[in-house]
């Protein structure tokens, strides 16, 4: 070793300088990490330590027009597990199955839920029974990742009575999550799946809250509360509908379990939906939190198709109820008045070309005015009227009356009715080929047969125009600004005449058995042939009351219901119930 004092001092200074540089380097590095990049690392450390447990918000309560509850939330519990990985989740579930019974399907479902959102607790029981909850609470210490929390459960007090329009709620699925309409939704959340629940999802959902739990490096929950301030869930405001719960339940009772069909009851001026039903019905409560497989199978295998909404989805030939459309078109065009007769009197049939078109009444109606033809539903009269109007106008006019339009009712999946497009000749050339059809199609169209298939709700809408001033109201279940659209233009006298003729249907005509004591009921029966079963026709009745100042429009369609008179009896009972109940209530109010 070279041990010259000067050299040693030089080396000591060099070494000290190097030490100092290393110190500055380290301190500088810590400054960069701890001070300059502080925010970023704080975020990472919080992410490490906190797991978000969603606190579901109660959905908005849904009321009927009088403040009765249609949909509410029941207290429920959900059980979920926080796990750092699939393997540890499976291990925890295996241990859990020693305490409570867990099916393989439940385990797999929990794993699927976990894969979809690994940072949220994997739900094991979306709707745990009180027994399960109490057993788990007892053993809570053994399962550190277990989260038991209240989770409001949707409930429809009169479930089967609401099935046609209320919809149901369920866990948001992957397709929904991928669509832009569900931006901001997280896997595991409940969403409206159909009906009002789906249509008004954004108003009903409320705002999910968050509870923060602290976990350690292995994902074990070490602190359940106080790790960070909870974000409380916000319940959605209530939703008020136009449904008359009393009437709705009455309608459902009328249909019982034996009749198949659809009903729509509207307030004619505002379009408020008073009742909407599709029979046979089902219980939407059983759809909440996953439809049981056997129930789903039973509903799908039922030949009466309970899941097929016969009020807004099913389309049926309107039959004679459509004759009013034909009549209105002719009167509007000034072709005739209610007192005019047709050249050929009804003898039970009408010869057109080489084919005889039958009237429903083999005895014939004789020579009738338009008003009498409506009352008696004379096919022969309307065959001639259809020819007089002409096919082109018959189709174009029908389209103007809304024959090809959805009503715009605030429900998802309303079907658009079927009707020829204009111009009619092009339509029929496309349908049958240029020489495959004759003007005889006008005869069918004029009596509501042929290429015409309407939803029950659209027929109800058309009759709101007949019941008022020629303007149709857009049906609305939830209160809002309804629109009225003019369908046709008739003067007051003509409107009164039409209504008188419709009242005649119930007083003397095809629906004479459906009179209501003290109330003038107006309406039209229909008996529609259908391709599924030629022997059993669909029965229609669309009507309103009181005839001159309508408070309610009802459209009833009975699948394979036979003659329209059967539908008329049901409609008249619905109207009677509604008007009497209403009258009583008005009296009560005055008495107070």
């Amino acid at each position: 070793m070279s041990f010259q004092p000067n050299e040693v001092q030089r080396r000591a200074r060099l070494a000290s300088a190097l030490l100092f540089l290393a110190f500055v380097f380290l301190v500088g590095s810590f400054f960069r990490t701890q001070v300059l990049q502080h925010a970023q690392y704080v975020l990472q450390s919080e992410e490490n330590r906190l797991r978000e447990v969603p606190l579901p918000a109660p959905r908005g309560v849904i009321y009927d027009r009088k403040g009765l509850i249609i949909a509410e939330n029941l207290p429920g519990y959900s059980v979920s597990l926080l796990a750092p990985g699939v393997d540890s989740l499976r291990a925890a579930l295996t241990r859990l199955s020693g305490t409570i019974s867990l099916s393989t399907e439940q385990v797999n479902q929990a794993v699927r839920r976990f894969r979809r959102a690994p940072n949220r607790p994997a739900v094991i029981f979306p709707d745990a029974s009180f027994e399960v909850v109490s057993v788990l609470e007892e053993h809570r210490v053994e399962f550190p990742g277990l989260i038991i929390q209240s989770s409001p459960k949707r409930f429809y007090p009169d479930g089967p009575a609401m099935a046609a329009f209320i919809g149901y709620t369920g866990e948001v699925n992957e397709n929904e999550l991928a669509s832009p309409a569900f931006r901001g939704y997280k896997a595991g959340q409940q969403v409206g799946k159909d009906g009002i629940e789906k249509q008004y999802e954004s108003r009903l959902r409320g705002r999910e809250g968050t509870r923060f739990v602290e976990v350690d490096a292995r994902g074990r929950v070490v602190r359940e509360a106080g790790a960070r301030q909870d974000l409380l869930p916000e319940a959605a405001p209530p939703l008020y509908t136009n449904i008359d719960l009393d009437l709705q339940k009455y309608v459902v009772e009328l249909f019982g379990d034996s009749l198949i069909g659809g009903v729509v009851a509207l307030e004619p001026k505002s379009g408020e939906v008073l009742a909407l039903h599709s029979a046979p019905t089902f219980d939407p409560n059983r759809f909440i939190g996953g439809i049981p497989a056997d129930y789903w199978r039973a509903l799908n295998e039922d030949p009466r198709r309970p899941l097929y909404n016969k009020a807004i989805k099913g389309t049926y030939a309107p039959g004679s109820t459509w004759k009013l459309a034909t009549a209105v078109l002719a009167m509007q065009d000034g072709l005739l008045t209610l007192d005019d007769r047709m050249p050929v009197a009804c003898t039970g049939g009408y010869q057109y070309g080489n084919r005889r078109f039958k009237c429903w009444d083999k005895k014939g109606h004789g020579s009738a005015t338009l008003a009498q033809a409506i009352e008696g539903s004379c096919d022969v009269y309307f065959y001639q009227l259809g020819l007089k109007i002409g096919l082109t106008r018959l189709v174009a006019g029908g389209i103007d009356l809304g024959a090809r339009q959805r009503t715009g009712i605030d429900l998802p999946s309303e079907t658009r009715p079927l009707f020829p497009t204009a111009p009619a000749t092009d339509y029929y050339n496309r349908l049958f080929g240029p020489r495959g059809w004759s003007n005889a199609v006008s005869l069918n169209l004029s009596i509501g047969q042929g290429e015409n298939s309407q939803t029950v709700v659209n027929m109800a809408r058309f009759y709101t125009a007949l019941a008022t001033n020629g303007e149709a109201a857009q049906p609305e279940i939830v209160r809002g600004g309804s629109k009225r659209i003019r369908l046709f233009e008739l003067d007051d006298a003509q409107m009164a005449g039409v209504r008188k003729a419709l009242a005649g249907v119930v007083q003397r005509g095809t629906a004479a058995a459906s009179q209501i004591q003290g109330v003038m009921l107006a309406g039209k029966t229909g008996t529609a042939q259908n391709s599924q079963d030629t022997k059993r026709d669909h029965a229609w009745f669309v009507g309103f009351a009181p005839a001159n100042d309508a408070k309610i429009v009802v459209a009833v369609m009975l699948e394979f219901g036979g003659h329209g008179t059967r539908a008329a009896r049901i409609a008249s009972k619905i109207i009677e119930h509604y008007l009497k109940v209403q009258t009583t209530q008005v009296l009560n109010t005055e008495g107070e």
Partner: protein
Amino acid sequence: MTVSRSRIADPALVAIAVLLSLYGIAMVYSAGQTDVPTQVAHAYKQQIIWFCLGMSVAYAVSRASVRFLDWATTPAYALSCFLLFLLLFIGAGAGTAASTKSWLAIGGVRLGQPSELAKIAVVLILAKILAARRQAPKSLIDLWQPALAVFVPWVLIMRQPDLGTGIVFVGIFFAMLFWAGASWQLLVLVASPVVSLILAFSTGLWGAWFLVLIALVLWYRPYLVEGVVVVLANVVTGVVAPILWDTLNPYQQKRLLVFLDPSADPRASGYHVIQSQVAIGSGGWIGKGFTLGSQKRLAFLPAQHTDFIFPVVGEELGFLGVTVALTLFLVLLLRSVRIAARSADPFPSMVAFGLASAWFVHVLVNVGMTLNLMPITGIPLPFFSYGGSFMLSCWITVGILVRISGEGRGKADMLVI
């Protein structure tokens, strides 16, 4: 000055070492405060016992004269090598060094890590060899003795394998050559094969390094044989590097790769580095508070009471706590260098500098790895990391330094003996 007034020759050094130890014990205590309790919760009690024991041993050591150290050098070195050799057959893994055979255990009772003794022994033997020469080493041939003295225990330690301690040996070797007066060119020539080893993974870089090396050889003009040997050594290491890489354990390979990019394997190998940085970074200016670090509390930090104790300082006491700790280390090391510089004789001077350099490598590598400035090697932080042998060896070091300081130039009148 009277003899009785100053029973401790270098109170400043001892004071810093005590402060560091207390700081360290506090951190070991905090490291045990986790939400899910582990055995670490009681580690601080043992650490206090080791601290007291360490101070007693240090006092005893400080009573032994430098001449005694000189005399003890060869036996200590021989004993170290023997124990390290023995470890290859009976060594046990434990704690954070579970995969290595670094522990000497008899009948299941762990006695300690002989590599700690070996560090001091190697410093002593190097000091003895280098101090025996009148002149600074000028050529590679002059270095065969010190190189061999380090090489034997180094190989034994690398066989355990204990990469961290191996690095410390290399650090000691170069630092002591520097203190002995070797020129920087010579140090570069000695180090050149290692550089080749690293650069060999990129042919271009290796080629460039080769040109630099040849220029250096031509300039420094060592003996012809030496020049040839150095160049050959570079060629050989460059060629065998990939082969050597394959002989590394997969975990060692991973550690080195993760050093280059921790996010390459964030869940496994990169995990420690990332979590350590998160802990330190989230500490901010003043930290989350003593014992309150969430990363530590929730077990996100690996080996938070041993190798990764410094992130606990960073997380709980923040930049302030880190700066205080690093400053204490700086003062300790500067003080040690001063002792080395003031020593009256070459041997104690070399010893003091060698011991200081061992501490320096420990601090630099340990603290550096918590910020991913250094690859992860299981190397403890002096006075902080939990561990009996290491606490003892640190305090033996203090004792030796105190003694050398006492016998130092201009302080002969303060001698206690």
